[in-house]
């Protein structure tokens, strides 16, 4: 029988390997899987390529993972945020690589990766410094850039509720990149506030069908990045 429930966050991230590409859900703190990220710090995998819109804030969650030196490369659209000091410091000292991608191109590249599309064209960034190294091509008299699909070994995301098949629903703007990352990663690990019985999620309202999800772990009262940062918490 199909039961994707995992007992603990530690078990859920146990097989993340050194050098893995890890997509991390969230836009700012909304949808950031703090508990999975802390479990990943405890687990110790290093040399990671991490895909997220930002680079975390304070010294918790994604920022703590970066601070711990586990991230070799970030792929993101906006590595600078209020209270974001960890990444800038490591970046300036050349200890972490950055691939800067416009936010919409980043989202679409992740979806493409999940949808088996190796590449697509977009008008975003034509004629800007971010065009560098990309192929330009004209369609119907307008110029576009070729963008390639992104896939990952793991996705760590956060949902509101899941069922044992891995069907997911989200909370408000915490949805953001999560449904796309679930599609693009070989192993998608989800922390949810609540695991409900099969059939409790209406088939019409499931946002991420279980086929895109490998592991579901309950974190009943997830921490909020802004609260941790305001309290001066530094993980571990």
């Amino acid at each position, binding site marked *: *029988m199909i039961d994707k429930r995992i007992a603990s966050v530690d078990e859920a991230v146990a097989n993340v390997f050194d050098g893995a590409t890890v997509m991390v859900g969230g836009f700012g703190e909304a949808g950031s899987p703090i508990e999975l990220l802390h479990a990943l710090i405890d687990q110790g995998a290093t040399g990671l390529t991490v895909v997220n819109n930002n680079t975390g804030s304070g010294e918790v969650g994604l920022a703590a993972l970066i601070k711990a030196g586990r991230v070799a490369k970030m792929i993101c659209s906006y590595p600078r945020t209020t209270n974001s000091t960890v990444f800038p410091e490591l970046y300036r000292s050349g200890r972490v690589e950055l691939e800067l991608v416009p936010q919409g191109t980043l989202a679409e590249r992740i979806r493409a990766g999940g949808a088996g599309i190796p590449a697509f064209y977009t008008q975003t960034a034509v004629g800007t410094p971010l065009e560098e190294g990309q192929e330009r091509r004209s369609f119907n008299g307008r110029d576009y850039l070729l963008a390639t699909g992104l896939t990952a070994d793991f996705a760590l995301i956060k949902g509101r509720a899941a069922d*044992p098949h891995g*069907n997911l629903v989200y909370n408000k703007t915490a949805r953001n990149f999560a449904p796309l990352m679930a599609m693009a990663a070989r192993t998608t690990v989800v922390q949810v506030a609540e695991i409900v019985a099969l059939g409790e999620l209406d088939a019409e309202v499931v946002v991420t069908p279980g*086929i895109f999800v490998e592991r579901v772990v309950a974190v009943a009262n997830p921490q909020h990045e802004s609260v941790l940062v305001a309290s001066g918490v530094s993980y571990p």
Partner: protein
Amino acid sequence: MSELTEGLGLTRDAMAQRVAVDIRDGAYVNLGIGIPELVAKYVPEGREVIYHTENGLLGMGPSPEEGQGDPELINAGKRQVTANLGAAFFHHADSFAMIRGGHLDLCVLGALQVAANGDLANWSTGAPDAIPAVGGAMDLVAGVKTIYVITQHCTKNGDPKLVETCSYPLTGLAVVDRVFTDLAVIDITDSGFQLVELSPGVSFDYVQERTGAPLIPIGETPSSGGTER
């Protein structure tokens, strides 16, 4: 058919049952229209299989009870179905993202012809007056991890459907992994058709005579370059 195979070979239901044996617990499966649809009935007890229908449903269940159907809850063959507990509805782009993105474990399809290199022809006989119609077949064979074919070993005229090279228009290049016929189970390998299993009472020679390309006997693995292919 019974004339051609002289009473030998599996019935359609027995073929479907044989396919079902090879479907693992927890698999996400798309079943083509026709004989493949029969497979769902025979999945062994204790295995949970989730069925995908490309028109936007994961967790497809059996046909509804008489009078309980909804004309807007149908499968790819446009027949009324039901949705199991844990099902999800989604639009066509998401549905084919599952297919193209390699998220489905298995697809079971019918065939007009299968070539020894795994080429599949199952959408058109190329007849000049035929209305071409492909549906989702090309997407499925290109995207799904494992492709099983379930088919009669020969056409109604007695011609082999397992051939050296397909003469009908292709659905996909080198896509088939395993073929289940009334006479045998055959894998597509780098060396060609590898016989895996014979139906009860069927001999190697009997199947070979009805196959348009060399069959590698059960258990034999040709040394590199050792076969005609």
